[in-house]
Every structure is written in structure tokens, then in C-alpha cells.
């Protein structure tokens, strides 16, 4: 039915069994109508192009992308979303199985996964793993590596959904404490929380890599577009129009001022009703562009005569990092063998399935920003400077965050929303489109690495010289951190007595490169681990033995001269892989003897990563308390972006306090009520915030015990009728007799932990980190030598985590990290202007991931809570070099550039003599 006057089309259908009617623009996407007009915000929008499957719904039983279907076509149909389906038999089984297998990490892809899985279970009953992969191949997940999703759906089909009994203590695979909303459609992400009627904001961006611009007649534009409530430009930024995450590198404007340094850079924003904005064509915004020649790589940026993109940065060098230990060049000169190479990596996109989103409103004269984030307090600090407001005037309320991997450490939507809400005095919301998310948010740094490593005949390393240029794009973001971290880590977890490493960040007209799982270390590990294999081959030493011979051990200095007298766990990681190294290697040899076109090889690589900030203060504070009714409240400010800090930090806290973690009420990182637990970055939350949680739990336990004079080993029974049990009996705590503070606490604690580090000297010598985590990966790869395609068939990952707080969460981190490492190795390359969507930019799908076995090594660390070390970034670091080494062993082709696309691999195969 259609109203000819307005072209609005009325559509009636059944939504989760209820008759609904919706008035929508012709051609409006069903996903939009469901979310915005019918309140079905369990339907997630990840790409608006059918590339991710997050918005999957069932229409008359068939799984379709709601973003590709006109609402009007649903007329008379039955539309089912997760909220309805979870009440069905299949949906209920899936919800249980997803929880039991921790198949949901951040949860943003989960509705699409579960809805697709319901259709599959209705179709085939008890699917095999292959049937699951085939049916769900169109839904992307960036967190899990897919294995646990496959396991969960197979289990749900088989009816095997009983929950394993776990105590919840440290070391047990406790189900995610925040898991239920992720599997029943209630989880509220950045775009799910705005109040009805909030105005919408759209950013106007540069379509050019490098350009000058002049804004046109804004008043005329507003007169022609009366629905526009507000136009924002650089003139509207009351405070500093230059932000950044590293002090001294605040070089990025909220809105560019007449000069744009990258494609996608914001120059203005408009605010209006969501419906009007949806009909608006951004090319109608009045602006005149003068396109300038762009600088797209580091060679151009450093060339004589290249324009300085930022004043005072000659040759566009942003900054550098440096480590010198011993005499690298002397050692290289006396080495018996030397391997060297120039390595190239590209921009890599984080590709979380949740584009940046949120809303802001003004409440009692303060601005509240609700958005997805990895770093609420850093967001608050950035806004204070940009808005010229005191911190107290800004409240950050983190929403659920649908993946981050480093990019959501930087602000995105926050300054636009806060500015608009303050100007208009009413709620303003926005969600980045996939295209603008890819264009404008940070990337992994492309690296140009020259590396030379020597070794003696007995296999001992003899000198390493590393030079790395990292393309930091148009703005610094976390580039200084990359430049700083890489020289410390580029040795790998090995004893390199003579070492020289320099890394520099270079400005270009690319998108800002910032933090991405590993801060440059995955790039340097590729060069180092690939050359290690070449050295071992030259020496005729087994590649695993070669690494073991040089592996760091307790008491031996790192390249920073740091000596750990405990906790160095790389050797056990390698040793754990030895049986498979031998067995898989033999199987590959047998396979290759029988096959000409297909060749298989096994590759090994190691890695390490220092947890927390490099030689800088890095505190986390955890506040907790007891209410009069006996409720234990934990203010858990470590942003859980899917990795599981809500569960892990609570397990640590509960263990220290002596209660069941399931009985703890968790409060999130709202800056009004929860202290700063630092950013979710640098594999620091389990280590640093975990320690703060341990200290808080211990302190609260002490207070409770003191109240009734109970001994250390007494048992706490909190909750209603809270009491303490000891050898002499039960002692009532009578909490309701105690005075409560303004937050309702009758007891409260707040404890801070800051890892012990020391500054580095001019040669990078010192104590950069209180702990490192260690990893070694083994990949079995099959190469189709005629087509140049590579498939990873099997994978084994050994990780020294110090102490496994939650083994299932560890597997999730490892499997997801390996997936990202596999993407880095084989398919992911963000090319500005060309791969700004998820069909030209490829991340691994269900069909690209091998079976992954995680081997947990527990070399306890004296600084870690209960001995635990960080893990998030370690999971990815050895993956790509292990795959490259496997390809070389399979075929003899030695790759110096990732991703190893089929075209690049085929060229290398030909060079290696393959037909």
C-alpha cells in the first residue's frame, strides 16, 4: 500500500510472531525499519552491503541479510530475529551451547550467527561441522576464529547442551559472566542505546588523499535544507582542535581546517532528523576542493622535496625508537652465516563487525557520551581538551563494544556527538557506515623492514641489525608507541648479545595508523622469524633446535639488558610443539612424495610481548564494596571488548575475596562511578587490572574478617544473612547495622596497581616491562603450486600465560588471534581508496580457519595476579611467520611481503622453480 503524496510505503508483516505495521521510505532497508521503526535492535548492522551477515533475519524461514531487502517486500511475510528465535527450541539450545562453548566474544556477530544456525538446525537437524561452515560461511566474526561457533552449533544440533559444572575459581573455565545478553539479543552496543527521537549526525569527509578546501555558503545550504538542525565545522570546536593519544603528538584535528591530509578526514558535520539525514546526499554539502598530489608510501614521504605534512617534521619523520645492545655490526662481521632481507607489510584494517557508534546528551549541564570504546577515561580526557571543559563536566558511559583490537582506543564519534549535543541541548546519535569506519579509523602500520641476522656454526646468534620504517599515515595516533615498542621486541624472545634496532614512524597521506593487536611487533616478527628459518637452513640445524639454542631463559638479559630471574617461558612453548613438529613434518614429507601439484609444509615461529605500557606509569584502580544487603559490588573498569575482562577480573577479585564470582555484581566503566582501570590495550588488563582486583579483593576480605575478628582462613558467606564461618562457628556480619555511604556501601575498597618498570636510557637499556608473555606457533600449510593458493590445514599454538585464569577464554583469545594472524599472512591488505568495504577487503571466513589446538603453558610470573600474564596480543604475533615458514618448507618459495595473495605466491613459486 502506498501513499502517493509522500511515497511512504506502509508494510505489514509478522515480527517474531506479532503483527506489525511500518511506514518506510520506498526501498528502505528492512534492517533499518526493524531497528529504527520497530525497536528490533537485536538486528545488528555491520556493513549495509551483505558482506558480513550480522543483520541476518529469517524471512519466511529463509536466512537473508536484512540490509539487502526492501522493507516493503516483507509485506505479509513472517520475519524472525534472534529475540524471537531464542524462545524456540532450536534457539534455546543454541543459546545454551553458545554460552557453554564461549562462542560469543564481543557478541556483535552473534545474532547473525544464531539466526543462521536456527535455519540450519531446522533444515538438517544435527549438522556436521562442514555443514555448519557451509551454511554460516556468509557471516563474519572477527573475535573467535570461528571454531567455538562451529562447536556450539554442532553441540546444539546434537542436543548436547548440558553445562559443565565449574567452581568459578581461578583456573576454571567459568562461563562468561556477561554472556547471557550476547546470546539472547539484549546486548546493547554503540548504536543500540540512543533514546527515541534523538537527532542523527553525519560527518562530511574528504574524498581526497591530500587536498585544500574551502567551505561554501553554509547559510545558503541551511536555507535550502531547513531540516538541518546544525552544521559543525572547525570553528565550532571550543577547545583544542588537535588531539592525539600520546603527549606531544596531538596532531589530529576534530575537523580539518582548510587542509585535509587523508581520504575520509572530517571537515564538517550536519545534524538533523534521522529520516531526513537518510535521504541526504553528502555530495550536496557546499565545499570546493583543490586536489594535491598525495604521498602514499614512506619512500615518497622521505624523498627530497616531498612536502612536510606536519610542520617541523623533516622528511615526514614523526618520531623514532632505538635499542642498542652490544656491537651488532661487529658480531655480524664475524658471523659464519648471515641471513638478510627486506620485508613489506600493508595497512591492515581491524574489521570489528561493529562500526563506531554512540550518542551524547546534556544532563544537568554536563555532557554524557555513550559509545563503544576501549578506553573510557582517555575519551573523557580527549573531550575535555576539545570542548574546553573540566573533566567533571564529561561523563563517558561505555556501551557494549563489538570488537576493538586497538582501534577503539582512539576517539571516533565521541567529539562530534558531544559538540552537537552541547550546541543543541538534545540527544544526538551516529553510527559510522562501514565505509567511513574503514576510511577514517586507525589501521595497522605498513612496515618496510630491512633485517640482517648472523649466526655462528654452532647455531649461536651473532648480531642482528633491524631498520624499520612504519607508515603512520596522516596523524600520529599510536605511531610513537609502535616506533618505541618495535626495537624492544624485534629480537624475538631470544638472547641477542649484539643488537641494533631502529624504527621510525613516517607521516603520509594514508589513514592514521595506530594501535592494532601487537603495535608493530607482528610485522617485525615476520622478518625475524623468517630469517631464523633461513639461518637454520644455512647451518643445517633443525629450525626448532635453532630457536631453542637461542631462546631466552631466566637470568639471561634481553636486548634491553633486562634480566628476568623468573617467568621466562619461551622454551617450554617450543618444547610443547616438538612432538607435532616431528610428526607433522614426517606426514608432509610423505604427502609431498605422492603429490606434484599440492605441496605441504610445517612452519614454526616464536614470539613475545611485554605487557603494559613501555617504561611509563600504567596504573589500574579497582573499586569494590559490600552493600547492606550483602551484595558484593565490583566496579570493573577494564573495558570488555569481547576478550573477557568482565569474567577474568571478577574471577581474580572473587578468588581474593573468597566468594563465588557468579555472586558478584559487576558495574562497568562509567566514568562517574568507576575508577580508571586504564585502557584495554597492550595485553595489560589481566595483568594490571587483575592485580588491582586481587588487591581489592584481599583488602575487602580483610575488612570483613576484621569485623568479626575471624582468622585468615575463615569462609565468607556474603549475600542475604551474610556471615563468616570459622572453626568457632558462624559469625553474623549484621551488615544492615553498618552505616552506608552515598553509594550504598557499608564497606568499600579501592586499590591501585602499577607495574614496576624503569625508564630506558638513550640506548634503550632499562626495564621496559614488568613481565612478558611468550608464544610459539606451528602451522601445517598446503599450497596449490599451480594456482598459488595456500590453505592452513592444522595449527597448534603454545602460550605461556603464567597462570590460566580461565582456560576457555584463553582458547578464545588464541583462536581469534590466530585468525587475525592468518589474515595478515594470507589475505588482508587495506588499500586506501580501493578496499573500503568488506568485499574488497577480505578477512578470514569460516572456511579459511584450520583446527587450532591451544597448549597452555603456565610459567608463573611473580608480578602477575596468581601468576598470570597477558595474552591478547601474543596470540597473533607468531602466526604469520609460522605460515610463511610453512610455505617455504612446502615449496621453497620465500616470501618477503604479506599478504601472500595467490598472485604473489604464484610469482614466488615460479621463481622457486615450480611449473
Amino acid at each position, binding site marked *: 500500500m502506498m501513499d*502517493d503524496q509522500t511515497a511512504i510505503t506502509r508494510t505489514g508483516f509478522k515480527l517474531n510472531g506479532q503483527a506489525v505495521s511500518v511506514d518506510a521510505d520506498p*526501498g528502505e532497508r528492512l534492517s533499518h525499519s526493524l531497528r529504527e521503526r520497530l525497536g528490533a535492535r537485536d538486528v545488528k548492522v555491520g556493513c*549495509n552491503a551483505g558482506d558480513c551477515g550480522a543483520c541476518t533475519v529469517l524471512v519466511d524461514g529463509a536466512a537473508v541479510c536484512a540490509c539487502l531487502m*526492501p522493507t516493503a517486500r516483507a509485506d505479509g511475510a513472517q520475519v524472525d530475529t534472534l529475540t524471537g528465535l531464542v524462545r524456540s527450541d532450536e534457539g534455546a539450545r543454541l543459546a545454551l551451547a553458545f554460552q557453554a562453548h564461549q562462542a560469543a566474544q564481543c557478541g556483535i556477530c552473534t545474532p547473525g550467527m544464531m539466526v543462521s544456525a536456527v535455519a540450519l538446525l531446522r533444515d538438517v537437524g544435527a549438522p556436521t561441522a562442514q555443514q555448519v561452515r557451509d551454511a554460516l*560461511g*556468509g557471516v563474519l566474526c572477527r573475535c573467535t576464529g570461528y571454531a567455538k561457533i562451529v562447536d556450539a552449533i554442532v553441540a546444539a544440533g546434537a542436543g548436547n547442551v548440558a553445562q559443565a559444572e565449574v567452581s568459578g575459581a581461578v583456573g576454571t573455565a567459568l562461563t562468561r559472566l556477561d554472556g547471557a545478553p550476547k546470546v539472547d539479543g539484549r546486548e546493547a552496543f554503540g548504536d543500540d542505546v540512543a533514546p527515541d527521537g534523538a537527532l542523527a549526525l553525519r560527518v562530511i569527509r574528504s574524498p581526497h588523499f591530500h587536498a585544500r578546501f574551502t567551505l561554501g555558503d553554509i547559510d545558503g545550504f541551511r536555507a535550502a535544507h531547513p531540516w538541518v538542525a546544525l552544521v559543525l565545522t572547525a570553528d565550532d570546536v571550543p577547545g583544542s582542535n588537535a588531539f592525539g593519544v600520546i603527549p606531544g603528538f596531538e596532531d589530529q584535528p576534530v575537523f580539518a581546517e582548510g587542509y585535509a591530509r587523508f581520504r575520509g578526514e572530517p571537515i564538517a558535520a550536519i545534524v538533523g532528523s534521522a529520516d531526513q539525514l537518510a535521504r*541526504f546526499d553528502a555530495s550536496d554539502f557546499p565545499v570546493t576542493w583543490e586536489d594535491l598530489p598525495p604521498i602514499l608510501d614512506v619512500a615518497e614521504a622521505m624523498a627530497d622535496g616531498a612536502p612536510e605534512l606536519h610542520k617541523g617534521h623533516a622528511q615526514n619523520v614523526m618520531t623514532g625508537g632505538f635499542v642498542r645492545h652490544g656491537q651488532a655490526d661487529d658480531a655480524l662481521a664475524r658471523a659464519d652465516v648471515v641471513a638478510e632481507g627486506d620485508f613489506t607489510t600493508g595497512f591492515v584494517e581491524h574489521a570489528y563487525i561493529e562500526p563506531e557508534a554512540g550518542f551524547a546528551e546534556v544532563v544537568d549541564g554536563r555532557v554524557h557520551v555513550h559509545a563503544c570504546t576501549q578506553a573510557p577515561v582517555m575519551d573523557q580526557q580527549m573531550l575535555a581538551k576539545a570542548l574546553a571543559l573540566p573533566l567533571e563536566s564529561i561523563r563517558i558511559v561505555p556501551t557494549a563494544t563489538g570488537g576493538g583490537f586497538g582501534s577503539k582506543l582512539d576517539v571516533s564519534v565521541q567529539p562530534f556527538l558531544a559538540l552537537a549535543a552541547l550546541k543543541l541541548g538534545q540527544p544526538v546519535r551516529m553510527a559510522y557506515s562501514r565505509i567511513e569506519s574503514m576510511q577514517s579509523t586507525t589501521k595497522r602500520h605498513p612496515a618496510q623492514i630491512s633485517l640482517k641476522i648472523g649466526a655462528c656454526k654452532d647455531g649461536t646468534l651473532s648480531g642482528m641489525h633491524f631498520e624499520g620504517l612504519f607508515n603512520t599515515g596522516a596523524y600520529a595516533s599510536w605511531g610513537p608507541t609502535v616506533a618505541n615498542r618495535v626495537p624492544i621486541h624485534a629480537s624475538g624472545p631470544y638472547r641477542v648479545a649484539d643488537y641494533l634496532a631502529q624504527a621510525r614512524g613516517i607521516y603520509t597521506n594514508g589513514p592514521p595508523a595506530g594501535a592494532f593487536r601487537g603495535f608493530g611487533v607482528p610485522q617485525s616478527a615476520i622478518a625475524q622469524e623468517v630469517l631464523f628459518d633461513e639461518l637454520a637452513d644455512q647451518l643445517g640445524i633443525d629450525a626448532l633446535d635453532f630457536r631453542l639454542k637461542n631462546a631466552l631463559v631466566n637470568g639471561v638479559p634481553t636486548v634491553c639488558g633486562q634480566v628476568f630471574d623468573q617467568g621466562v617461558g619461551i622454551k617450554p612453548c617450543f618444547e610443547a610443539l616438538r612432538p607435532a613438529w616431528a610428526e607433522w613434518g614426517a606426514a608432509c614429507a610423505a604427502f609431498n612424495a605422492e603429490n606434484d601439484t599440492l605441496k605441504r609444509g610445517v612452519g614454526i615461529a616464536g614470539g613475545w610481548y611485554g605487557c603494559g605500557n613501555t617504561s611509563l606509569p600504567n596504573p589500574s584502580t579497582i573499586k569494590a564494596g559490600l552493600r547492606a544487603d550483602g551484595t558484593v559490588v565490583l566496579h570493573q573498569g577494564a573495558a570488555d571488548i569481547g576478550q573477557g575482562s568482565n569474567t577474568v577480573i571478577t574471577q581474580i577479585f572473587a578468588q581474593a575475596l573468597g566468594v563465588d564470582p557468579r555472586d558478584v555484581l559487576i558495574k562497568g566503566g562509567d566514568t562517574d562511578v568507576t575508577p580508571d582501570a586504564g585502557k584495554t590495550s597492550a595485553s595489560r588488563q589481566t595483568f594490571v587490572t587483575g592485580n588491582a582486583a586481587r588487591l581489592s579483593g584481599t583488602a575487602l576480605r580483610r575488612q570483613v574478617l576484621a569485623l568479626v575478628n575471624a582468622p585468615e582462613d575463615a569462609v565468607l558467606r556474603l549475600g542475604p544473612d551474610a556471615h563468616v564461618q570459622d572453626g568457632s562457628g558462624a559469625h553474623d556480619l549484621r551488615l544492615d547495622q553498618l552505616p552506608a555511604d552515598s553509594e550504598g556501601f557499608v564497606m568499600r575498597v579501592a586499590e591501585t596497581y602499577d607495574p614496576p618498570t624503569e625508564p630506558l636510557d638513550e640506548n634503550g637499556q632499562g626495564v621496559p616491562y614488568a613481565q612478558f608473555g611468550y608464544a610459539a606457533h606451528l602451522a601445517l600449510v598446503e599450497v596449490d603450486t599451480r594456482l598459488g593458493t595456500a590453505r592452513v590445514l592444522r595449527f597448534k599454538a603454545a602460550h605461556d600465560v603464567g597462570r590460566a585464569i580461565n582456560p576457555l577464554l584463553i582458547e578464545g583469545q588464541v583462536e581469534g588471534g590466530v585468525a587475525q594472524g592468518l589474515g595478515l599472512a594470507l589475505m588482508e591488505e587495506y588499500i586506501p581508496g580501493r578496499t573500503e568495504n568488506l568485499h574488497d577487503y577480505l578477512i578470514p571466513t569460516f572456511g*579459511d580457519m584450520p583446527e587450532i589446538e591451544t597448549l597452555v603453558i603456565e610459567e608463573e610470573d611473580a608480578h602477575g595476579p596468581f601468576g598470570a600474564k597477558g595474552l591478547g596480543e601474543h596470540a597473533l604475533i607468531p602466526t604469520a611467520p609460522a605460515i610463511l615458514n610453512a610455505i617455504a618448507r612446502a615449496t621453497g618459495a620465500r616470501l618477503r611481503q604479506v599478504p601472500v595473495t*595467490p598472485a604473489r605466491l604464484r610469482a614466488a613459486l615460479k621463481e622457486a622453480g615450480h611449473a
Partner: protein
Amino acid sequence: MGFHRPDRIEDALAALASGASVIAGGTDWYPSRGDGPVPMNVLDVTRLQGFRGITRDGAGWRIGAATTWTDIARADLPPAFDGLKRAAREVGGLQIQNAGTLGGNLCNASPAADGMPPLLTLDPKVELIGPHGAREVPLADFVTGPRQADLREGELLAALHIPDPGPSAGGFIKLGARKYLVISIAMVAALVHVEGGRVAWARVAVGACSPVARRLSALEADLQGVAVNALAGAVRPDHLKDLSPIGDVRGSAGYRLDAVAELVGRAIAQAARGA
């Protein structure tokens, strides 16, 4: 203005004459808009009479233009359609296959359209309906260039007519940089009729290696009479001389030619195994 979803072709043609934008499955229609607004005058062709479904058409077959990939994958069809079925299972993911249509794939006229190579081997004619009546055009002539089709003002693609392919068997191989949900670097379809252990006739088509997917007629001629167990050496470089691949983010031109030589051999062998 508005959303038109007629049953009758006359109403569809009227809407088209009013300037409506044609949507079938929507799987290309929406992504092609980027972040821009969607049209306010839309003609949905998925409910038009005769536009969806696969039927016998004399000795041949008729496939409605709005037939989805899932419809094809699940249809009971002879082995000649095996290549088309394989392609149907590799278009996007299941969500795309449930919505995307054969006709949309052809009208969208991407050089990497997964449906084109297997359909070219089936030698169909497309049925076009317009204000001046219906006409039929060989598929090979219908798609004229990247994003260009011989679709005249006011015309709709209604169906494909496929002549009886006899007891031949089809094959299809798609080369992409990942397993699912991937745009082809190159793809090859083959249709082979084997008699007495030899190729009686064969048709081979290559996609994503020329502005429009195309048949390799010289190769097809040379395959006649070749013993099935001797197919491995049948493909020579000059058989590929009509291909003119470009280099893009998915692969270089040289790589495409190199890989396609291998893919052609494999697709023929796959088809011959089914024949």
C-alpha cells in the same frame, strides 16, 4: 514515486516508464549505493508472473529472471546444470544465495558475475519484455561490457531459455582469495559431452578475465575427439588469446592468465568426470 511490487507485467512496465529503479534480489542494488540515499521510486520484479522458477520449455528449460541461487542449487536438474549449481553455491554466502537472482546477476553485468560462465556454456537466450513487446537475444550478446547490457529503455529481463543440453555434464571452478563470500579472481565453467571415452563436444567459458565473460571457441574446437584420459594436455596458451584480464586488488593480469590456464584444465576434467 513509491515501491511497486506488481504481479502483472503491464504494471511493471508502467512503473518502469515512470523512472522506477529495478530491484530484484537487492544483493547488488543496495551495495552499489555506497552511503548514498536509496531511490524513492522502486520496481520490485520478484513477484512478477513467470519471473521465478525453473520449468521445462519444450525440449529445453526456462529459468525465470528472479529465480534465486538457492532455487537453482536445490532444483532437480540434469548433470548439464552441475556447473551452474556449483556457481549458485558459491555466490556470496547463503544469505546472498537466498536473495540474489540469476537475472540480477546478468543485468548487473559485472565481469566477475558468477552466473555468466556456466550459463554461457548452456548457450541460452534471454527473454526481454518491453513496451514494444518481447524479444530474445543470445546471452553472449546481451551482456556487452562491464556494467553494460543490451537492455533497452523500458525493458525488463524476464527469463532465460536454455536449449536441451542433452546428456552432457557441467563443471565450474571459482578461484578466490578466501573460501566463502568472495569475489572471483577468475572462474571457469565447462560443459562436456562424452561419447565412447572421447569428447563429442565441449563448451568452456571464462569469467573475470575479460570485460565480459566469454567462451573459448578455439579450445572447444580442439577438444572435439580428445580422449577423456588425455584431457590434461589439451589446453595450450593460444587457446586463451581472446582473454584480456586486468590487474586489480584481487590479482595481476599476468596471474589471472596463468591461473586460468590451470583452471580451464581442471574445469574440463571436472565436467568430464560427471559426464
